[in-house]
């Protein structure tokens, strides 16, 4: 670089390396520990002998968890919920973002609509009235209760319409001159040009749907309708005594390592999309915030 490395600078650099490595280690340790616990025997876990490497390796905890009907049922519900939610959210985002990205000269009512959308970010009726509406629209205890109340993701719409705005006007104008209608322009031109942003939003929405648990608890009266995170909420946080009794009859499994196994399985989908998340996330923020 453009300076001489002094002694104090070198000392700083060494300390800085150590500090960054230490902080990273502290951040990742609990997750590695959970992974190790899920593969360790009951005795080793109870004695607190497990750190980041499995002690007395076993797979029984995973076998037990996977064979638990409540677990795989809720896992299935979570998958369906992600697919439905993704479809609905993305469709609504695209449909709303395109007209909203038009300047007032091309779509005079644009600002009126924009305010309708943005106002929902500022103010909400709150938990109880939304619950009563979900009930009134007969969605309670159906999978649609997890999809419809958040069907229109306003924040994502704003990101996408900002991106649409940043596309050169000439593309739009030439397509108009060639006689293409708005639907065709959206489908054939704008969407293919927006693949990176759309990929970002797909990943956002997937993670959000996979991780959400509260709506499951709120809108599902029967535990067999719970999506995975809601089911895990009842298991992982509040230790269900019945489950522990069931478990203790099975060799090698304790509430702790089976709990760890469930946490790891529930994390897997996130870890699978994580590389994409990292790749697109910052890009998505930067692209979306292009001023309109």
């Amino acid at each position, binding site marked *: 670089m453009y300076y001489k490395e002094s002694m104090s600078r070198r000392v700083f650099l060494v300390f800085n390396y150590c500090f960054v490595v230490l902080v990273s280690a502290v951040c990742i340790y609990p997750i590695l520990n959970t992974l190790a616990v899920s593969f360790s025997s009951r005795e080793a876990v109870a004695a607190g002998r497990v750190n980041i490497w499995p002690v007395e390796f076993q797979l029984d905890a995973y076998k037990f968890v996977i064979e638990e009907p409540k677990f795989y049922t809720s896992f299935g519900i979570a998958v369906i919920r992600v697919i439905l939610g993704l479809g609905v959210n993305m469709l*609504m985002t695209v449909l709303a973002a*395109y007209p909203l990205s038009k300047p007032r000269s091309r779509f005079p009512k644009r600002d009126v609509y924009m305010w309708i959308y943005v106002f*929902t970010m500022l103010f*909400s009726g*709150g938990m109880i009235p939304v*619950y009563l509406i979900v009930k009134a629209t007969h969605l309670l205890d159906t999978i649609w209760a997890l999809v419809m109340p958040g069907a229109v993701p306003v924040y994502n719409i704003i990101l996408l319409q900002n991106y649409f705005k940043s596309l050169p006007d000439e593309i739009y104008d030439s397509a108009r001159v060639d006689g293409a209608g708005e639907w065709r322009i959206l489908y054939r031109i704008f969407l293919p040009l927006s693949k990176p942003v759309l990929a970002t939003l797909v990943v956002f929405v997937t993670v959000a749907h996979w991780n959400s648990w509260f709506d499951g608890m709120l809108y599902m009266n029967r535990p067999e309708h719970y999506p995975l995170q809601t089911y895990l909420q009842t298991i992982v*946080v509040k230790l269900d005594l019945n489950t522990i009794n069931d478990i203790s009859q099975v060799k090698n499994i304790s509430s702790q390592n089976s709990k760890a196994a469930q946490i790891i399985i529930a994390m897997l989908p996130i870890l699978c999309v994580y590389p994409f*998340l990292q790749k697109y996330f910052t890009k998505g*923020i930067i692209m979306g915030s292009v001023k309109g």
Partner: protein
Amino acid sequence: MKRKKGKYLSFHLMLLIPTALLVVYCYVPMAGIIIAFQNYKPALGFTGSKFTGLENFRVLFTNPGFMQALKNTVVIAFWKIITGLIVPVTFSLLLNEIRRSSIKRTAQTIIYMPYFISWVLMAGIIVDILSPENGIVNRLLGLFGVEPVFFLGDNNWFKPVLVVTNVWKEFGWGTIIYMAALTGIDLNLYEAAAIDGAGRWKQTLHVTLPGIAPTIVLLTTLSLGNVLNAGFDQVYNLMSPITLESGDIIDTLIYRLGIKNAQFGIATAAGLFKSMISAFFIVTSYKLAYKFTGYRVF
């Protein structure tokens, strides 16, 4: 003219379904806030329930539980905003000093990961590592002869635990954003500063910090909108009846009153109170963000 009308028509058609859904699931519930002024009985509905004016608010504000929850909310949210500013800025500056890109990237990958894990799973992990029996934190403290601490069952510890675990989950996100801002700083500025005799510390002070100042101001002002958001997911999953006193926040209170005790009127009143204050702060923060940085959300 006819063609022009048809053109708008397709825009209106595109917006039809999203707007309709927004009306049903956002605007109709907004109308539902009249429950806050009623002694709402589900059997009687909006129209049949008796109007009681501000009675629900009176009950709410004279309830010590609500005042405690309000205080907890503001205190927790305040510390989360402060740590959410200081920790990512500091860490991104330190990370920026690391020249070996493999370490830099690995560190970024690691610290960013908890952000995408739900609070349910995080809470499961936190309960384990803070366990007074064999949690790692207490095992470490034991090495120094400290008696095991029941972090999640102690009202003195609960708020600090909330703030620290929130930093763990969230600071990677802020760090990544500041890192992006740091890479945007013109390298010539460093060169010029070095020629003028500025050392690394001076360069950080006079080039780096001003360079990311707009981002700092932006994220901080935007976070003002969260003064009454102390984090329902986190608190609900970590709280127990023992820590209700130090951990109960407005959102958990609303849930308990409304869904568990079916006191719809009072819970909606609490929600309305929160919504109004939040809306005020969000609008103010956006105005400030625009004034300071020219940032516009839309």
